[in-house]
């Protein structure tokens, strides 16, 4: 499985036609096709290209939502 650095993950911010990837618990998910991630933003305050592990703790849903999306890699420690 492909490994991404934080910088490489940042390049996938979902803006201007770029792919929207988000990381959580070390895995990277492709949320590009989600209605809820248009232009790389989710509920205004969450951004693609970032590690959302901590943000997800405070979100009104669990990781099960992210697990519906394809895993495209792992985040390098």
């Amino acid at each position, binding site marked *: 499985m492909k490994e991404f650095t934080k910088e490489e993950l940042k390049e996938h911010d979902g803006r201007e036609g770029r792919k929207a990837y988000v990381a959580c618990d070390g895995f990277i998910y492709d949320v590009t096709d989600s209605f809820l991630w*248009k232009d790389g933003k989710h*509920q205004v*305050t969450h951004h693609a290209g970032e590690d959302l592990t901590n943000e997800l703790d405070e979100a009104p849903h669990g990781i099960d939502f992210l697990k519906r999306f394809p895993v495209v890699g792992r985040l390098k420690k």
Partner: protein
Amino acid sequence: MAKVTREMVEKAGLNVDEIIELLVKNAGAELTTYYYYTILRANLIGLQGEGIKEIAETARIEDRNHFEAIVPRIYELGGKLPEHMKDFHDVSACPPAALPKDPTDVMAILKVLVEAERCAVRGYTHICNITAGKDHRTYDLALSILNEEIEHESWFSEFLGEGPSGHFLRRGETSPFVGKFLK
């Protein structure tokens, strides 16, 4: 814009433009849901469908009320609605509650309804979490809407066989929580 109102929210440490964007997206979700629920309600027919039509209608009317209640807060904070309806639809905080491919499949319609309500419950919980103790009026508004969205979810959830919710259909007026913002 209500200048001091905005100042108070900024002073509390909130990003007001983010709050406005959230409100616009959720107002978009309410109005588009009102539209899609109109189609769903029209297709809730027959022995199974007729039993659900009444709650779908109540949820539809209350979602329109939510739109009406949110809009003044957007302008108070210095925001505005998108000029074009299509843009408003496309920024919606929730996916379209579109009619299933088989419009006679009442269970499929129920799943669309419950998912729409669940998206709303998550969305208003998010707004409440952000505004609690900081933007009192937006919090009060979001909490009032959340109370009604939770009831909508409960109604549809029961019909899906997910167990009792302890809620009853509305008796009398719609929007018992949001009504105070509509007067």
